């Protein structure tokens, strides 16, 4: 395999990994504070994607549509907290698995009935399809934009978490929710904040996703949900740093399998990736997290 192709695939993996990392982070933020997984998480992406498709289709400039899309995504995330999580605060842990799952199906159903069961295409502006040529290396413009936006989003998140009072409270809550309440931090507000942050990250990932795939369908949220889960689990549940690492690791494994496997097996990439993940979990049930924990103790 030529060095040019290798570099191109590397960039490709970075770009896909950026999206996965954002997705994983969003899921991990809620998990770290609540200890629960949000099964309606993929629908945040779906709502963002549909918002963008519909707005651009109605003539709204892409940039504005993207912003509104992210806001819609945040709305979806907050709605999930209010409908699926809040009423079940005292119920056994598995209850929210079902309730968020139910919300996910309701959203999909509504889209099918109100908009259309068929995929909706996005008219992606021409310049986004462009390619940057460095010597004999061709790098898609979209890949660069994806990586840059994802990195900016992650940096912004880090500065919010480390630099603000609310961010500090969220990190404290992730560690010890009860004691954080003793400091006077309102539990409900913290949780809403976590869902809002989660929705922002997933919304941004949704923008990047729809630009990449160009089409929105009612059940499009499932694959991102799965990728996010896998990345979070690989990275160690609740570890934000691990989630990012997990996202990139997953992308690299996927791209590597696609590049190096004989073409007959390529359709099985998803299956093989999952097998790899299960194997990793067998040897390290805690994912990457253990190493990070050891450093702290």
């Amino acid at each position, binding site marked *: 395999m030529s060095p040019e192709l290798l570099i191109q695939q590397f960039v490709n993996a970075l770009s896909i990994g950026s999206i996965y990392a954002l997705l994983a982070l969003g899921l991990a933020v809620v998990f770290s504070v609540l200890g629960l997984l949000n099964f309606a998480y993929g629908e945040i992406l779906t709502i963002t994607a549909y918002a963008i498709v519909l707005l651009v289709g109605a003539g709204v400039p892409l940039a504005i549509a993207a912003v509104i899309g992210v806001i819609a995504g945040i709305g979806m995330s907050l709605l999930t907290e209010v409908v699926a999580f809040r009423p079940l605060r005292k119920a056994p842990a598995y209850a929210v698995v079902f309730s968020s799952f139910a919300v996910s199906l309701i959203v999909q159903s509504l889209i099918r009935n109100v908009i259309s069961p068929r995929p909706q295409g996005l008219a992606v502006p021409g310049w986004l399809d462009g390619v940057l040529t460095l010597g004999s290396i061709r790098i898609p413009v979209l890949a660069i934009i994806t990586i840059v936006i994802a990195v900016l989003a992650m940096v912004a998140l880090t500065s919010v978490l480390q630099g603000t*009072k609310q961010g*500090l*409270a969220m*990190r*404290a809550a992730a*560690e*010890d929710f*009860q*004691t*954080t*309440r*003793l*400091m*006077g*931090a*309102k*539990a409900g507000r913290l949780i809403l904040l976590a869902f809002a942050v989660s929705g922002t990250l997933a919304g941004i990932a949704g923008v990047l996703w729809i630009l990449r795939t160009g089409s929105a369908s009612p059940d499009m949220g499932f694959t991102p949900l799965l990728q996010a889960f896998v990345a979070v689990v690989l990275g160690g549940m609740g570890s934000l740093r691990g989630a990012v690492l997990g996202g990139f690791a997953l992308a690299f494994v996927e791209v590597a399998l696609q590049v190096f496997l004989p073409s007959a097996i390529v359709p099985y990439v998803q299956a093989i990736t999952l097998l790899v993940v299960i194997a990793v979990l067998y040897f390290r049930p805690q994912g990457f997290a253990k190493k990070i924990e050891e450093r*702290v*103790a």
Partner: protein
Amino acid sequence: MTALLEVDALEAGYGPVKVLHGLSLTVGEGETVAILGANGAGKSTLMNTLAGLIRSTAGRVHFSGQPIHGASAEQITKRGVALVPEGRHVFARLTVLENLRMGAYTRRDRAGVAAQLDELLQRFPVLAERRGQRAGTLSGGEQQQLAICRALMSKPKLILLDEPSLGLAPVMVERVFDVVRELRERDGLTVLLVEQSVVNALEAADRAYLVSGGRITASGTSAEMAGAARDLEASYLGGESA
């Protein structure tokens, strides 16, 4: 002396298991009061209920004349009651400074917070030394000091200390009780303290209550209680006495 805290026939527990069966006590402003009793008598349950982490099922609690039974933990902290929980519960992955900042969560006066931070770090040089370290790396005694300082950061009027000497070496225990005394003498705080170590508790406190089976079974000044220490010994499983 005005009663800062009035607890009246308090009942509370965990689900179907009731631990407090009608407990009443008062704490006057500026006093340091100790709660003594064997394991399982309900001391920690009392502290957690006062702090709002556990919902009481009956009875009333008044703080500064205002009812706080039924209020949430967040609201109670805002009113001026700070709990230093059993086991300290410092945020292990946050730094010492961040822990202290979390303590000041309810405050809006930035300058005041900064000033108090400096003051506490000067007063507790061990914390100043480790200000940037993760709290999980501190020793038990250091964590206890951190937990108390964190509680002080919310500028409480009443501080609840749940087993401050638990798991600490004797040298550290002494230091912790010096701090407890400082809380009254230097900070003018009212202190309600739960302690296994009868000797230390009575030395630091003005009055004490004995809790047994979720009720108050004896009370009096420290002198009176110390005199009855031998009877107290019978209440403990291998407890200490003066």
